[in-house]
């Protein structure tokens, strides 16, 4: 199977969807010059009407994307997680609420693709891992691809989905390479990954580790370490947080009796908190040990390379948590 980078997978999905459907267009800052790497060449293929460079106006152009989606367009909006705060009102008050408050009249097939920089010295203003915020507000589907295959398949699904979606392009995952099947090798001729289906990254019997976004890589690394000690770790990547495939998680905990969650979001009210609370309610009787959250420390993100790595989950912290659940 051909290998490609995460960013190339995003670019390929975008191109395919734009080819397939005229109503799909891309909008964002400096996308014609492809500042974030995933839109190179698109303006030559699709023209300036469908590859739109915007001014620095996140309320204005997020809202314009939403408005256009109300009347038949399917915008993909490229931005950075930290700039969500600037356009937040359009995302929450409008995108997430319009359909419901208009009694189902509004359909909003708008997709945000947001680069989630962190762990690279970007400092507090550019390191937001804010998917928990959107999880709390109903009305937007939350996608966290952690490898090129899922990035391509989930983005294509998001573009076709008729609800607002946000794709969080994880700062750790974006540097990954991986296998992505060529379309001609696929039964349906295209790669579509469904929402709400977790991926069991590896099966195991002693402990369940759910990795969220960049946490998946740490979970895998930790599983490697534990394997050497004869501990069998089941690693689960939910892939989408809204909808969340809680069945797969609960089933795994039923088997292992132990749960660790690795989530790079700030730990308070995180995806890890949510998953822990679900299992503490619905999977309680399977549990043989405390549920361990390995999430970011509750501080802002420091710039210094001497400090920043101390904030996030690491394979070592996941290993320590696994050990604790086993002790």
């Amino acid at each position, binding site marked *: 199977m051909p290998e490609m980078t995460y960013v190339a997978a995003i670019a390929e999905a975008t191109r395919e969807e734009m080819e397939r459907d005229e109503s799909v267009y891309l909008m964002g800052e400096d996308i014609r010059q492809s500042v974030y790497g995933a839109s190179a060449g698109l303006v030559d293929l699709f023209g300036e009407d469908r590859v739109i460079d915007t001014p620095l106006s996140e*309320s204005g152009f997020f809202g*314009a994307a939403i408005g256009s989606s*109300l*009347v038949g367009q399917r915008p993909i909006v490229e931005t950075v997680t930290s700039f969500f705060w600037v356009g937040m009102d359009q995302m929450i008050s409008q995108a997430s609420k*319009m359909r419901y*408050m*208009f*009694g189902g009249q509004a359909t909003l097939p708008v997709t945000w693709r947001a680069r989630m920089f962190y762990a690279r010295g970007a400092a507090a203003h550019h390191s937001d891992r804010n998917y928990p915020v959107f999880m709390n507000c109903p009305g937007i589907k939350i996608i966290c691809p952690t490898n090129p295959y899922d990035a391509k398949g989930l983005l294509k699904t998001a573009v076709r989905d*008729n609800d607002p979606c946000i794709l969080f392009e994880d700062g750790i995952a974006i540097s990954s390479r991986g296998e992505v099947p060529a379309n001609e090798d696929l039964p349906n001729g295209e790669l579509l990954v469904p929402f709400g289906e977790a991926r069991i990254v590896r099966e195991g019997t002693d402990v369940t580790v759910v990795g969220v976004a960049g946490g998946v890589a740490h979970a895998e690394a930790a599983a490697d370490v534990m394997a050497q000690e004869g501990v069998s770790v089941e690693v689960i990547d939910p892939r989408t947080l809204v*909808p969340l495939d809680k069945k797969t998680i609960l089933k795994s905990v039923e088997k292992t009796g132990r749960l660790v969650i690795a989530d790079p979001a700030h730990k308070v009210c995180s995806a890890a908190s949510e998953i822990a609370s679900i299992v503490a309610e619905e999977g309680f009787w399977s549990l043989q040990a405390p549920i361990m959250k390995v999430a970011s420390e509750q501080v802002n993100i420091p710039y210094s390379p001497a400090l920043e790595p101390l904030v996030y989950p690491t394979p070592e912290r996941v290993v320590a948590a696994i050990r604790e659940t086993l002790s």
Partner: protein
Amino acid sequence: MPPDRDTLMLMLERMYRIRLFEETVIEIHSTGELQGPAHPYIGEEAVAVGACAALRDTDYIAGNHRSHGHPIAKGGDLKRALAELLGKQGGYCHGKGGSMHLADFSVGILGESGIVASSVPIATGAALASKQQGKDFVSLVFFGDGASNQGACHESMNLASLWNLPVIFLCENNQYAITTSYKNSVSVDHVSDRAPAYNMPGVLVDGQDAIAVYEAVTVAVQRARAGEGPTLIEALTYRFEDHSLGLDRIRKSAYRSEEEVEEWRKRDPLDIHEEALISTGVATREECDAMKSDVVVLVAEALEFARESPYPEPSDLFEDMWADPIPAP
């Protein structure tokens, strides 16, 4: 371009509809039958009616919290509007939206909005879609003098000008944002004075005169359809009633004098339009009265419909959340 007779009569009818609808709303609020928030449009009818008369059904509008006049002017259904206010299944939004969120996508009403200025970018986006789709649909957004100070307005006007979008920014300057005079919230004399900052025409129009509004919007619509871009129009008007029903804590006189209110009431947009029609021989007083009586019946029927419409069922709670549903968390 002055409106033709049919248009003039349609405008009159819609003004009656709004006025009588709002009077009914005030009444059922006072009796406690209507409990949610509601922001009466009385005194400002000429703006929505003049504007919407210059639009086609396929054109888009978006509005704000002062939300009954716009959809009625655009041709919305009184029954479904009133049922919505009562939170009924037969309402436009099946009772999910209430007063501030009326919408009828079938006639281009993309929705009223409770967060001030939040539909300005939305309308701009509908105009962008129109352009991308090669359609000649125009998009018009109603917003207040207060709203004009939001960043969303600035950003939207800049985008619309840059991209030459078929959108009309229609500021309903009723001179107050709740209790705050626009003189204390807008740092220029008129909101329309800001148009040059976006390289678009700025027009100040008498918002009590439906014909004047119609004419100004017609020019803007022609511009927009011809691909010449956006226009900012400021209609100077006045809200005759309290900011919202139930907000009696704020007495009118505390921030605006009784005299001021009385002065403006003398310029009732319905009187002005009736007189224009009668004085130019378009209609007689009797024709006007007859039309009004018909509307009285319409509104009464709407109220009956709204009252008889059932409440949504508990199971409806989870309907209308997703276009492509997902399992409950």
